[in-house]
């Protein structure tokens, strides 16, 4: 027996939903935690049903993520692009700008940085890296401003335009790596030549953790300051709460659309730059396995909070890294995707509890 939802008709419902005036803070913290545990519970049942020992599987997952210095460092490595892209989309979402284009902005950032690295291979590091940095954020920002302009001017739906530009960016990078930028020694495989030493971000000794981590942490701090300590951030938040009120207050929405998208794209572009300069050391086909899309989920799970985005990025990175480790205990890759899906399902499903209150029995006053 299941209770009907929505304040409803006849036979007294088992429980009813009531909208909260303020989203519950307690629930906002507790729900995701419980959701993850519930998801693991469901996953455990599934694993057990398919003949695996769930405890062992989770153990090997956890071990892969935090069980060794190497695993831990790799989790950090994987979290870096997620953090930057997640921070990027979150600032747009806060203004109710649906930037679905972080994937494309990531690719263009990677493209911009690679352009510098491949065109001027002899620059010294102290010029090369800043130049790549600037090129990365410029290209990412540009790619986000392209859909922002028609949005600001004519109200063109940015969901469609940012999404479509992803494909353009990916194909543009493919064109480069299959065509003009292909490594002459690469036997036609879609890779550029490796970057020169000067174009490689410094790493923590013995790991692949690169300077991008600092970029991401600084970006989170910067966003926090912008959003809660500056007039611009105040405007962004007001527009996000109520565009009409913002317009009354004399806030220039059009200008903010462009500026916020620029910032949003720049951060995703920086993610692309730090991935090529920090990890792959060359541009290649499929440089992002969907970081830009995962970033959207991360931003929402983190309720668009910069500090929380950093944390949630680690969680997701752990899921991805641990997902591979689990395979060594014989679990197929598809099961891992299923687990990841279950976690999202519960967390997003639990969202409702932060915005609605559940009443058991009859609703009072009716």
């Amino acid at each position, binding site marked *: 027996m299941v209770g009907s939802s929505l304040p409803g008709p006849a036979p007294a419902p088992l429980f009813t939903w009531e909208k909260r005036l303020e989203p519950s803070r307690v629930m906002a913290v507790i729900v995701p935690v419980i959701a993850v545990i519930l998801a693991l*519970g469901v996953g455990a049942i599934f694993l057990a049903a398919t003949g695996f020992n769930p405890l062992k599987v989770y153990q090997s997952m956890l071990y892969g993520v935090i069980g060794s210095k190497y*695993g831990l460092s790799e989790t950090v490595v994987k979290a870096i692009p997620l953090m930057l892209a997640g921070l990027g989309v979150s600032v747009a979402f806060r203004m109710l700008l649906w930037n679905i284009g972080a994937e494309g902005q990531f690719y263009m950032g990677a493209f911009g940085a690679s352009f510098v690295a491949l065109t001027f291979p002899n620059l010294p590091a102290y010029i090369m890296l800043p130049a790549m940095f600037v090129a990365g954020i410029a290209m990412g920002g540009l790619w986000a401003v392209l859909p922002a302009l028609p949005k600001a001017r004519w109200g063109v739906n940015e969901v469609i335009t940012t999404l479509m530009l992803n494909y353009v960016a990916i194909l543009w990078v493919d064109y480069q790596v299959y065509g003009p930028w292909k490594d002459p020694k690469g036997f036609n495989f879609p890779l550029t030549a490796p970057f020169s030493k000067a174009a490689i971000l410094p790493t923590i000794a013995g790991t*692949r953790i690169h300077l991008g981590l600092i970029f991401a942490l600084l970006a989170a701090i910067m966003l926090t300051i912008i959003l809660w300590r500056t007039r611009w951030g105040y405007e962004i938040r007001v527009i996000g709460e109520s565009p009409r009120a913002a317009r009354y207050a004399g806030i220039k929405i059009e200008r903010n659309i462009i500026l916020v998208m620029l910032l949003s794209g720049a951060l995703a572009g920086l993610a692309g730059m730090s991935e090529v300069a920090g990890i792959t050391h060359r541009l290649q086909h499929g440089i992002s396995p969907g970081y830009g899309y995962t970033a959207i989920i991360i931003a929402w799970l983190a309720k668009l909070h910069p500090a929380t985005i950093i944390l949630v990025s680690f969680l997701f990175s752990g899921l991805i890294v641990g997902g591979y480790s689990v395979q060594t205990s014989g679990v197929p890759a598809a099961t891992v995707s299923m687990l990841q899906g279950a976690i999202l399902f519960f967390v997003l499903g639990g969202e409702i509890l932060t915005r609605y209150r559940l009443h058991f029995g009859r609703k009072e006053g009716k």
Partner: protein
Amino acid sequence: MRKGWRFILVLLLALMVAVAAAGCSGQKPAGNSQSGEKPAAGEQAKDEKFKVAFIYVGPVGDAGWTWAHDQGRKYLAEKLPWVDANTYMESVPEGADAERVLTELAEKGNKVIFATSFGYMDYVIKVAEKYPDVVFLHCSGYKTAKNVGTYFGAMEEPRYLSGMVAGKMTQSNILGYVAAHPIPEVIRGINAFTLGARSVNPNVKVKVVWTNTWYDPAAEKQAALRLLDAGADVIAQHQDTPGPQQAAQERGKYGIGYNSDMRQFAPNANLTSPIWNWGPYYVKTVEAVKNGTWKSEDYYGTMKDGIVDLGPFSDKVPQEVRDLVNQKKQEIIDGKFYVFQGPIKDQSGKVRVPEGQKMSHEDVLGFNWFVEGVEGEIPK
């Protein structure tokens, strides 16, 4: 607020039930299956076994490339009882993730690691430097080190034969070829297929579509449909799944599979498939490493060695065609016929390999031009 807490309490209770349930069912596999119950003892025994691991670019259920390698892994486990070949990692992208996965496998005490896709090459070399005691074998690449060998096979031989089948069976004289990446391995296959087809039917043209992916069932199928739209009536493929075969079946046309016998996936379309048979190589190599006789090499097996072969014909292929193909197969095995033997012209009609000459092995491995009869472009 009190209501809120009550609800949390309920949730917590539900959670405890769930965990308890999970815990109980978690015991089950350990409880009732012997192999699960023994982990403590079993694991120790396992540790003494010689550990071998595989990394795959697709899922083991792709029915093609990865599946064929995984058959090889199972064959290895069956033939050599002292080997623990239970570890494999599937769907590992050819990028930054590969380095972590390789490192993890080396860390876990694997003595031999087979990396079964071209794009793992640089990561294999990088990780191998850090683990000099682990032997890495990289499929289809060209970089070796003291503890890194490469292995591959002369797929051009069965490809040539499958081209003969296609050339005999086509009516439109247009063959379609769904191709993954424009790298020498794939180009070599297209050329062999085309040479085979034109050896029995000089009017044949081979149209090529690149998908830029090894594994993407939907994209592979789409590409095949485009070729069928363009008039092709036999679809060949250098892809990891039977998607292109299924496209041919939908349109009532023929298909030539790849990697494994693909008849079951498109019984009305599939004529035959050039196939891989990795098992014996895996056994031989692991034995050599164990005995200390292994040395880094570029292994390139042939049809004679059995690592490649032409799979069974479907009943659509008439006896005369089978006879013709089988005769050529014997010539190849006997060393009387070489696929890339002059005269071979390129797409512009220029003679690239003069009559009476053979292409060198190096040139074959680095193939970057199409032979006459191929309609398509290699991105430059």
